[in-house]
């Protein structure tokens, strides 16, 4: 039997955010772009004590960003190689007893099998939007517009 999960709680920055780890792009990479977003609860309120992990599984790179009081997080990323470029995303928060898994896809790219299996509204929750030179990706934990999460 696996060790069960427990919430990351409100004080995780002590152990998990001792230094900035939100840059997945190589320093000076001209293709680097900012990926920003907000973590929101079921009423649309910002989750100000969440933790977002970004994983490029194929490229074996990883980063994390805590959320600020306005629920915002931010990364510096390079578009991963391959079709339907994306990052896998783990979400942790106080009130979340187990981390949730989602994905952020780059906009204006062909869909892969995962995206194609979803209806349009669900698919839209996984695709970042280009906004003023950055990519924007909001994560909604609950409600009608909840982000798609994967079993894991």
């Amino acid at each position, binding site marked *: 039997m696996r060790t069960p999960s427990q919430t990351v709680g409100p004080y995780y920055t002590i*152990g998990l955010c001792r230094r900035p780890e939100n840059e997945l792009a190589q320093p000076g990479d001209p293709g680097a772009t900012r990926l920003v977003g907000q973590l929101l609860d079921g009423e649309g309120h910002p989750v100000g004590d969440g933790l977002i992990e970004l994983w490029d599984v194929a490229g074996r790179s990883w980063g994390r960003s805590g959320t600020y009081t306005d629920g915002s997080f931010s990364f510096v990323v390079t578009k991963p190689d391959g079709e339907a470029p994306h990052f896998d995303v783990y979400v942790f928060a106080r009130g979340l007893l187990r981390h949730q898994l989602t994905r952020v896809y780059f906009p204006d790219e062909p869909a892969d099998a995962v995206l194609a299996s979803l209806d349009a509204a669900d698919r839209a929750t996984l695709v970042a939007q280009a906004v003023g030179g950055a990519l924007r990706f909001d994560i909604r934990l609950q409600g009608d517009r909840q982000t798609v999460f994967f079993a894991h």
Partner: protein
Amino acid sequence: MTAVDETSPVVLPDDSTLGPEVQLDYPGYRSTRRRAPNRPLASLPEELHDAAGPVFGHETVGELDHDLTRQHDGEPLGERIIVTGRVLDEDGRPLAGALLELWQANAAGRYRHEVDAHPAPLDPNFSGAGRCLTDADGRYSFVTVRPGAYPWGNHENAWRPAHLHFSVFGRLFTQRLVTQMYFPGDPLFAYDPIFNAVRDPKARELLVARFDLETTQPEWALGFRWDIVLGRGGSGTTPLEQSP
């Protein structure tokens, strides 16, 4: 998701059919009400079933990172403890090179964090953070002080049992775990909704370390053993916590 009910009991009866899964929408833990996802989960993408995670090298970990009692000029107050064990997968295979990160309250039950308003003293000699990598046998070891219990705002007279927070990166992407380790025999277990959100009592036991005289160092520190068991990959989890 369970309907919001301000009068729900803080601790629900056991349900061993839930196995190791924590109940995401556990009503006794108030913060879950607006944060627990309530739509069915999608299937784990095929390519993630056996995908490897990032490798954290020895440069990730400083020489004294595993010893929370030696990170300042003086020693922290409290009961010195050694916490050791192995990181294994469900087949009992040790996981070498797993990164463990630990954070905790001090002996008075206070976190070194701006949000913690508990009127208990901070300890200038205790930051409450540590990390280490498992060795070839999957073994880890931390030296720290036993954290205090502390109050929280979940319900009237709510206290968290003493615990250590652990974050674990296994070998596989799906072997990511964040959890809490508890101390044996804590009288607060019966009242804590976070602990009891794991509804199978056998699974809850896996969150509790055991006292170990062999690990205990004479004239110096009490020893506790706690193994961490990660999934074996694949789509392991069934989304039991999702109601239709």
